[in-house]
């Protein structure tokens, strides 16, 4: 009786003739649709906008009028929409599934925040409109700064840096400005950076001409306090420490580290990319930190957008606050807001900003989203964010401790670090393991970072995953680990088998880089 509906149409797969897959004529696989490059669907004469040719004006281009074709494709609106919708179907996203990319805090992105950022009063205002016409925008910046200062317990804030790495640069510039003011710039040329640090930390220090000196990790995945103290000296400008660190651990000795850094006359820069684990529970200002950037696109949930835009505001201690760069917002006695955007303004204000990180005032679109997120959570919700993110990560750590190899003793903070010891002798490597997760419908965890353990697998579930979701994820990893250990190599080495693309040849891509589309060479004319 089963297998038919009332119209006599077969409903059971048992009744279909075709099993497995075959190569389709189109290359498509049902909902998985192939898509050519825009330049290949170019159809001269088509256009996705209707614009009238202007008339009755005098050209003022002089001898600089553009000549000839640019080569841009011509495509109508329906084709453009279809093109990008098809491309979108080739992406994994947090909206579609768990995205355990350690250090990246891929949490849910509330759509309320998108709506707020698009209010014309925020989205459609120009950075150089008269200040009296943007009082609400300045108020929003002021308010965001207030939340960041309260949450971190730091007295100074600058909003303008455009991402985490830009915030690092800003914080390290403030440190250098303070050293210049103290007359110790020449003598302090070394910056201590733990081996486990994100690549942006050493890159930032080096940009400012500092010599990067690596601090080793101890057996517990934290800064080796003795090795660190041995490296301190009168030539040290700063330490750049991530806390919680990139192994997902709270730096237990952080207060002692801060004390020693300050005693040596240096400053304490904290990479705050992992602030999510402690927001609302621990204030970096209470730990002795001098400057810390906050990735609004991590902790405060502004969407990653496939690689940005982000925002990297920096909070400062009393010692560094006067050097914070232009611009910044002050609240006047009459309740109005004023943007301090020039050195002359600052002088009148009694501050000594070190300079300017970017044109205009920073990532307003991210500020609006982040404040919307903060207001929604409140002090209580933010504390819960930290607690649930840490709980989810520890649950993963505890549940997988016998199947994968945890690198360090728990508890962890918001992410759990494993290394590849559990794969030893299986012929499966971290990369293969990660790629097999793709076939299971997951984005892989961060792999091969941090560098302090072999074949790292860094898992950050975030607080916006339900227990049910985390349970299925854990069960999947257990199953994969068992498969690897029972010699089911095919499931790994060729993976992913079911993604829109199989593994891509990165070596070939780098050897002979093809970085743009070029028109096909015209066919040889017959002689």
């Amino acid at each position, binding site marked *: 009786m089963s297998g038919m509906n009332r119209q006599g149409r077969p409903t059971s797969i048992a009744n279909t003739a075709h099993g497995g897959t075959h190569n389709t004529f189109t290359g498509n696989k049902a909902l998985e649709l192939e898509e050519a*490059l825009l330049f290949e669907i170019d159809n001269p004469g088509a*256009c*996705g906008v209707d614009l009238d040719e202007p008339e*009755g004006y005098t050209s*003022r*281009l002089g001898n600089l009028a553009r000549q000839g074709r*640019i080569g841009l494709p011509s495509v109508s609106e329906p084709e453009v929409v279809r093109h*990008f*919708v098809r*491309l*979108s179907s*080739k992406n994994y996203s947090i909206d*579609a599934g768990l995205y355990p990319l350690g250090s990246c805090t891929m949490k849910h992105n509330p759509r309320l925040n*998108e709506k*707020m*950022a698009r209010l*014309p009063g925020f989205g459609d205002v*120009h*950075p150089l409109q008269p200040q009296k016409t*943007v009082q609400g925008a300045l108020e*929003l910046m002021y308010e965001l700064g207030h939340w960041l200062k*309260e949450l971190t317990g730091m007295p100074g804030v600058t909003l303008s840096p455009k*991402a985490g790495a*830009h915030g*690092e640069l800003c914080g390290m510039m403030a440190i250098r400005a303070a050293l210049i003011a103290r007359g110790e710039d020449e003598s302090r040329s070394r910056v201590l950076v733990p081996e486990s640090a994100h*690549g942006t930390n*050493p*890159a*930032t220090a*080096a940009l400012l001409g500092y010599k990067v000196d690596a601090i080793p990790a101890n057996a517990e995945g934290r800064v080796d306090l003795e090795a660190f103290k041995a490296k301190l000296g009168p030539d040290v400008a700063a330490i750049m420490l991530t806390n919680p660190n990139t192994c997902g651990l709270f*730096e237990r000795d952080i*207060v002692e580290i801060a004390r020693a850094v300050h005693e040596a006359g240096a400053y304490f820069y904290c990479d705050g990319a992992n602030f999510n684990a402690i927001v*609302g*529970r621990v204030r970096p200002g*209470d730990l002795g930190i001098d400057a810390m950037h906050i990735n609004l696109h991590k902790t405060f949930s502004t969407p*990653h*957008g*496939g*690689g940005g*835009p*982000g925002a990297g505001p920096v909070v400062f201690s009393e010692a560094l606050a006067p050097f914070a760069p232009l611009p910044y917002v002050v609240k006047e006695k009459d309740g109005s807001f004023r943007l301090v955007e020039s050195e002359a303004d600052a002088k009148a204000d009694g501050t000594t900003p070190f300079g300017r990180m*970017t044109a205009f005032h920073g990532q307003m679109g*991210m500020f*609006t989203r982040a404040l919307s997120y903060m*207001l929604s*959570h409140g*002090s*209580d919700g933010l504390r819960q964010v930290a607690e649930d993110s840490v*709980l989810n990560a520890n649950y993963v750590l505890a549940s997988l401790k016998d199947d994968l190899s945890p690198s360090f003793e728990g508890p962890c903070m918001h992410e759990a670090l494993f290394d590849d010891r559990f794969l030893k002798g299986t012929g499966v490597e971290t990369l293969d393991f990660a790629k097999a997760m*793709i076939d299971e419908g997951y984005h892989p965890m961060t792999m091969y*970072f941090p560098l302090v353990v072999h074949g790292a697998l860094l898992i950050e579930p975030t607080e916006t995953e339900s*227990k049910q979701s985390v349970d299925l994820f854990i069960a999947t990893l257990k199953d994969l680990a068992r498969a690897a250990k029972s010699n089911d190599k095919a499931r790994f080495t060729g993976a*992913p088998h079911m993604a*829109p*693309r*199989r593994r891509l040849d990165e070596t070939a*891509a780098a050897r002979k*880089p093809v*970085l*743009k589309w070029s028109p096909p060479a015209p066919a040889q004319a017959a002689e």
Partner: protein
Amino acid sequence: MRYLPLTETDRREMLGVIGVKSVDDLFRDVPESAWRDGLVDLPRRKGELEVERILGRMAGKNVAAGSVPFFVGAGAYRHHVPASVDHLIQRSEFLTSYTPYQPEITQGTLQYLFEFQTMVAMITGMDVANASMYDGSTGCGEAVLMAHRVTKRRKAVLSGSLHPQYAEVVKNLSDFADYELEIMPPALPGKAEDIASRICDKTSCVVIQTPDFFGELHDLRAIAEAAHAKGALLIAVVPEILSLGAVTPPGEMGADIVVGEGQSIGNGLNFGGPYVGLFATREKYVRQMPGRLCGETVDADGNRGFVLTLSTREQHIRREKATSNICTNSGLCCLAFTIHMSLLGEEGYKRLARINHAAASNLADRLAKVPGVEILNRNFFNEFTLRTPKPAVEVVDALADKGVIGGVRASRLLPGVKEVEDLLIVASTEINTEEDRAAYEAALREVL
């Protein structure tokens, strides 16, 4: 809390599995001196409606550009963005994915980056473009650092008509990275700037903006030659990227690096950000470029696909030896740029540029008729500079009171420079109607 799925029951069960009594136990590595039992001193959680009310009230205090005759440019331009752009960039698969580190499941992002790079190379007339910088100003700073690497020299010369905040960004970077810099005095339209004579055998690059801060267009050919003759590079800066639909691109005038602000295409004003830095150069310098690059390759089945490539330049591989510290860039803004550009296409891009030029040209003709007003520019695209018979700060203010946002006074960005105190920089784009221009003219007559 509506965004947090764990229930009290879940939490209890999970703590049981972990083998601790309370979540406090998980925070046991936090030093006692930093331990807090209470909440930080901030308001409690709020529902959607309440958040909308609060932020709606703040938004309501701003004059949205679209609500008045609006003529502000100076590095950010109000253009019409087709509806499908904002719709498409909000698709979950684009909006809520990370940087494409796993190419097998991020071909969507990678392919549009490849298309983006191609389009940027095409419009600038350069060989290669990267997958974006934060914005035009930081891209400009990176370009100068790149020129130092390429030439192994340490001194840059900036034109006096470069956007003053771009110059401040370059100066900041140069100061802290211990490079030399010469910034020419403000160069008003119509006054020749003798930048060529400033180039010597220590000069790594000359930085020139076109259309410049005052709206003036520059022919770069002579300065390119002069720079190259001394072994220096020419960096061209284009904050109004739509201009390249009408104007000879820097790549055809000898530029070695072109830096642009891509905001005009697909991206709103957003009070200054997020925007999208465009960065293009010659093939031979590609390994000295900052930022991500997307390249074409094949997968294990031989199908075409895209990956991030040449990453040995970047911080995650190279650490302190990287060409830049940039990581997160302007991904979604690149997407908006690419979609808008696809809708425009060859014809639309050029025509939109002509419409902008016509709008500004007509506005200049109108305003030139106002007694006491002088237009300084000879050649411009969609922006020009007025000399007003009163200090521009008063003019802008009085115009705003009459409901016209009439431009940017040059003194806002060049405070203390006497000769720019009566200058008003005015942009006009396709958003302005004939009525807007008439309203501007009328208001200007009244306030002068």
